[in-house]
């Protein structure tokens, strides 16, 4: 499956490798006129049937079905290789290890809130202090927990995922480009 041109997985591009110099370039690859061997980009970058405008500088292949490379070579091979690389597996597991339990927690907490409010109104009506009762506190708790989870997710993504993902993005696009260069 692995294309001969694809570099061996994870060689020197682990999540820990420095990426400061890439940090500021995040939007650049998307804005530039380079093409990647990329079925989404080719087929959909500009709408179909558009007159050649400034955006049509991207050469759109006539038939994407023919263009889409099989799994044994081309871009698909690059993506398979990247998917199997240790660096990518690390990013993915960091994402999943954070998101799966957190989603379970907040959905559970919200379900508990809704079920308690509908099934146990007596408990929810119990006064706590002054006008405050359990229901009002739980409602405020939902707001607070939403803000807290949002903050935690953004922080986790920024510190634990962004840099490695950016490295991988560059690496994947480099590989795809190298492949095209080698083939033509």
């Amino acid at each position, binding site marked *: 499956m692995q294309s001969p041109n694809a570099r061996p997985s994870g060689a020197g591009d682990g999540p820990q490798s420095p990426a400061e110099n890439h940090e500021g370039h995040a939007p650049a690859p998307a804005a530039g006129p380079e093409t990647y061997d990329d079925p989404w980009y080719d087929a959909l970058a500009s709408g179909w049937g558009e007159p050649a*405008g400034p955006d049509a500088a991207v050469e759109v292949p006539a038939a994407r079905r023919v263009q889409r490379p099989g799994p044994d070579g081309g871009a698909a091979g690059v993506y398979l290789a990247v998917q199997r690389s240790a660096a990518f597996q690390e990013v993915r597991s960091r994402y999943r290890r954070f998101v799966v339990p957190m989603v379970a927690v907040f959905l559970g907490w919200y379900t508990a809130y809704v079920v308690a409010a509908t099934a146990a109104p007596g408990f929810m009506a119990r006064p706590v202090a002054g*006008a405050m009762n359990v229901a009002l506190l739980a409602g405020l708790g939902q707001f607070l927990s939403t803000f807290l989870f949002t903050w935690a997710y953004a922080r986790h993504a920024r510190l634990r995922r962004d840099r490695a993902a950016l490295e991988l993005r560059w690496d994947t696009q480099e590989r795809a480009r190298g492949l095209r260069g080698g083939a033509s």
Partner: protein
Amino acid sequence: MTGGHQTLALLLFSGFVAVTLAITTWASRRRHGSAEEFYAGGRLFSPMENGFAIAGDYASAASFLGVPGLIVLFGYDGVLYVVGFLVAWLVVLFLVAELVRNCGRFTLADVVASRMRERPVRIAAGASSVTVSVLYLVAQMVGAGSLVALLIGRTSQAAQVWAVIGVGALMVVYVSLGGMRATTWIQIVKAVLLLGGTVTLTVLVLLRFHGDLDRLLLTAAARSGHGPAFLAPGLKYGADWTARLDFISLGLALVLGTGGLPHILSRFYTVPTARAARRSAVWSVGLIGAYYLMAILLGFGAAALVGPQTVRASNAAGNTAVPLLALDLGGGPDSTGGTVLFAVVAAVAFATILAVVAGITLASSASVAHDLYASLRRRGGRQRSEVAVARVAAVGIGVLAIALGLLARGMNVAFLVGLAFAVAASANLPVLLYSLFWRGFTTRGAVWAVYGGLVPALVLVVLSPVVSGSPDSLFPGLDFQYFPLQNPGLVSVPLGFLAGWLGTVTSAELPDEARYAETEVRSLTGAGAA
């Protein structure tokens, strides 16, 4: 409502229309006519701008007028309703925003179609997106009609009809001429107006009670006639087990539906990277959360200062709570302050509806042109520019929404919004999550997931007490009610997930490993993202 309110409200609203039309003109002069520009506004909005625009897209008239109204009439159960709208954003932020930004280009169908056989999947996802959008649009149009009746003080049919037609015509102009760039700026202006108005009213309410929240709540409870029960759940959704299950169903639809709303998904394509999409979702959580907290406070404030009897006398559904509160806070019906505040609130409510309908119209015209028309047009037929088709689609959807909005005039706005969320949660979210996270997902699974959620959701609504079998239903004379709940979410969301799983395990097609690898790598790294 006296003539003073009316004139001033109309003046302010005309000012908003003039500003938005100026934005539209400006945006259409700079456009290049590309799909990138029309659907995604050039993808160069900043996270803060997009966060405001998302907040503008999300906070519809239902939340500006409806939520405080619910709280005035039913106390805590109004709070219960709001929480679902906010918690939903965690689903969007954690599972949808970044990944969709990385994988798709303009629509939900892009994400799914990229790893499946394109045509059937695009048609299915496009059809369900248009259905969701049209339901949501009709809700807003109905809201616009009744708002005019309430705020301008003319309850005549003609005023409502003209309001619906006027809103429809304006949204078509915004969308077909200005595209995403104009729509986004309109959302931003509207979000700022809405937040400004809400902050002003909240400060005035707090000043009235000298910052003593406890006294505010106790006064509200005392004036409601329910006593402490006003501050606890049960007044609206606690009657019997059907009502309770109905609320659980609605809660599920709200939390899972937001991630499948086409006009929310399309907002994430207007920023350059997934990181920017994440940051705009964080902004919108902050803005929407703060806004809902203030809306809750305004609800209890209206209960304490205006009282449920006065509100109910003005509008049985409670939709006039905020305007009446503004009148009271400004110094009463005959004071200048009261007149000005009332007019400001009325104009903000109009602006809210107008901006929301523009956002939804744009998203559905993208689904029609980019997904449905592109898949269904005859091969070898005359090629038309996709953007031209999208502009025509915006006009068509506008006409459809006006027609349905006029037909559905008597229907409850909150119900229609809940229904749109239920359909989004049943038809759009399962297919989206399966495509992003399930290696073995196949084309048949994708198609079944969409129709397996869409069809039950719609059928259950037709069989529900909303349509027949009860005095308040659409056809009170008929009785083909077989499903007890008003909101189908509790049944149709699991069915959508089940159908997607069933379609996948029964299909002979082997899942395409390479294309899943591509989806996974793209979704998490942004490689090759648009």
